[in-house]
């Protein structure tokens, strides 16, 4: 068991180093010179050289690489070329703003996708299934921003029940006193529940956008997975034993559990990058919109910071996922725990098999 955990941690550490290397390599892969991006086309060679030395671009490759690696590992992600603010503190204050709609959005996607996919699978080829398939294909053909704009059009412009897409707080709300720097967290700490619930109210449309956007592919996966397993000999035998429909469903679910979990983590990783678009539409002060801004300006440390935070979060997701899948399934668990293949019962030569 301990050996298994250690082996996973070592793999995670190696992957993290790979990720940092990738992020370092981004600088050379990006078109253009950061100094030129910063100073404009008409910078003098002296200014360019000054910026190069400030950014450490004049140092030998290995010095730059090892310096970057050690700074990143100690949590220093550098400073924005344009605003000069620290990238790590920007991420720390903005990440909660993103998570506040992203996590509920994914939870919504999970619930809606699970329920509708299951319903469709059990009504295979009947009306409900056909309606489900129809809506899924429409949703899946729709880019995030179209969905967001559509929701805004209906709920803000027409029905007037959603707030305007102008960020997390309206100007009327008092900003909570600065403690952590993250507004939702500070509002909780200060006990300003009015402010906090107004933030949540403004998060509803981003949550619904994310929820619907990811419910579609997730629901489709649930449907096709269930359809397959409901036809399997395992479920036929369960039904032939007279198990109740609820028990049969649980057997079926345990069979596709692993692939559904994998798909959820994939969606989570995808949602982090999708966050940029949703945040732009809703002027949401999260990591997504901020990094999009950085990408458009060529703000290298910001891009690197975003790549790192996205990569690390996905990496963490995959490592946890892998461990969960291995430990939840007795077939792989026994191998992981014992570290060797278990002897089969009754497989000894003298046994009557």
């Amino acid at each position, binding site marked *: 068991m301990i050996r298994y955990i250690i082996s996973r941690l070592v793999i995670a550490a190696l992957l993290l180093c790979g990720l940092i290397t990738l992020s370092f390599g981004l600088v050379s892969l990006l078109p253009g010179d950061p100094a030129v991006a910063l100073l404009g086309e008409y910078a003098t060679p002296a200014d360019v050289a000054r910026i190069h030395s400030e950014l450490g671009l004049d140092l030998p490759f290995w010095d730059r690489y090892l310096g970057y690696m050690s700074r990143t590992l100690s949590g220093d992600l550098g400073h924005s070329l344009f605003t000069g603010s620290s990238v790590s503190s920007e991420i720390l204050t903005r990440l909660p703003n993103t998570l506040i709609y992203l996590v509920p959005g994914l939870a919504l996607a999970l619930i809606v996708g699970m329920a509708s996919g299951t319903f469709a699978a059990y009504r295979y080829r009947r009306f409900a299934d056909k309606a489900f398939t129809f809506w899924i294909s429409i949703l899946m053909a729709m880019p995030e921003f179209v969905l967001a704009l559509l929701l805004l059009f209906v709920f803000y412009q027409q029905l007037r029940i959603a707030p305007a897409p102008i960020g997390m707080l309206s100007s009327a709300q008092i900003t909570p006193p600065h403690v952590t720097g993250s507004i939702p967290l500070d509002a909780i700490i200060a006990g300003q529940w009015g402010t906090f619930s107004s933030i949540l109210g403004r998060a509803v449309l981003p949550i619904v956008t994310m929820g619907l956007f990811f419910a579609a592919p997730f629901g489709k996966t649930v449907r096709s997975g269930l359809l397959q397993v409901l036809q399997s000999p395992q479920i*036929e035998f*369960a039904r*032939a*034993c007279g*198990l109740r429909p609820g028990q049969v469903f649980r*057997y079926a679910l*345990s069979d596709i559990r692993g692939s559904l979990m994998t798909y959820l983590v994939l969606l989570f990783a995808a949602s982090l990058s999708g966050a940029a678009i949703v945040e732009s539409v809703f002027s949401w002060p999260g990591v997504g919109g901020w990094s999009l801004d950085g990408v458009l300006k060529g703000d290298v440390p910001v891009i690197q910071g975003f790549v790192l935070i996205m990569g690390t979060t996905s990496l963490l997701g995959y490592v946890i996922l892998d461990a969960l899948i291995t430990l939840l*399934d007795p077939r792989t668990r026994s191998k992981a725990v014992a570290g060797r293949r278990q002897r089969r019962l009754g497989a000894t030569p003298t046994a009557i098999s």
Partner: protein
Amino acid sequence: MNKTLQVRELETEFHTPRGVVPALHGVSFEVQDNEIVGIVGESGSGKSTVVRSITKLLMPPGKVSAGNVIFAGRSLLDLPEREMRQIRGKDIGFIAQNPFSALNPVTRIEKQFANIAKAHGVKVDASERSRALQLLESTGVRDPERVMRGYAHELSGGMAQRVVIAMALYLNPQLVIADEPTTALDLTVQRQVLDTLRRLTIESGRSMLIVTHDLGVVAAYCNRVLVMYRGNIVEQGPVEDVFVRPQHPYTISLLNSVVRPEEETQYVPGSAEEADTAEPETPDSPKVQLSEARRS
């Protein structure tokens, strides 16, 4: 003798995108009390479809379009799913072809027994558990306590199939239906499992409907046989009658394809028996019985 199961003019079809494909064209037969009936026929002749139609386990696009199934005085095709579910597992036990794909891989064997009991409103307690243990023991499972606490993947094929048999017999069904119960097992194990099955059905006064494409199995274990061909039962009767005096051309060719009485150790190439030729024939092997039956 009473009839456990009566099937009358059963018609089943598959509604495929290319149209309605009939799979059974009016199948009629019965299973008497304390009798083993075999169904033989080539692949695709509709053997599994018969089984699924009787137990109402047919999945869409399959549909029973006509006929009657009477089991213990009840017309199964008219029962709502809720009542049918209570019959499955309790009054009709089902034995699957491949135990590894039938057993739940992530649930302990004892939990799977408990789930069956729970589904039929049987209280799960220590005495129920020891009944399952005894049943496992009587199916020939070694170290049943350890098997109960373990998972399916820890078992050998023969042991896993014995666990499946124990599950099918757990709630003491009157009728056991087995769809090719030994095809997934190797040859020596097949005999042991079939012997166990016969012992547990006939000696406890149960009946069994067994699907197989091995005529040797029919000769050795069945009282009566149904020969299926393209969705029809082309011949049925006591095993001796059908095998000695086959009436239908398909039955004759089926018998000829397995063994020729004049040169009984020669097998048609590609026949399922071929793999067995290396083994010396023992007097009680089903094939020898089959050929003896044909000679007499």
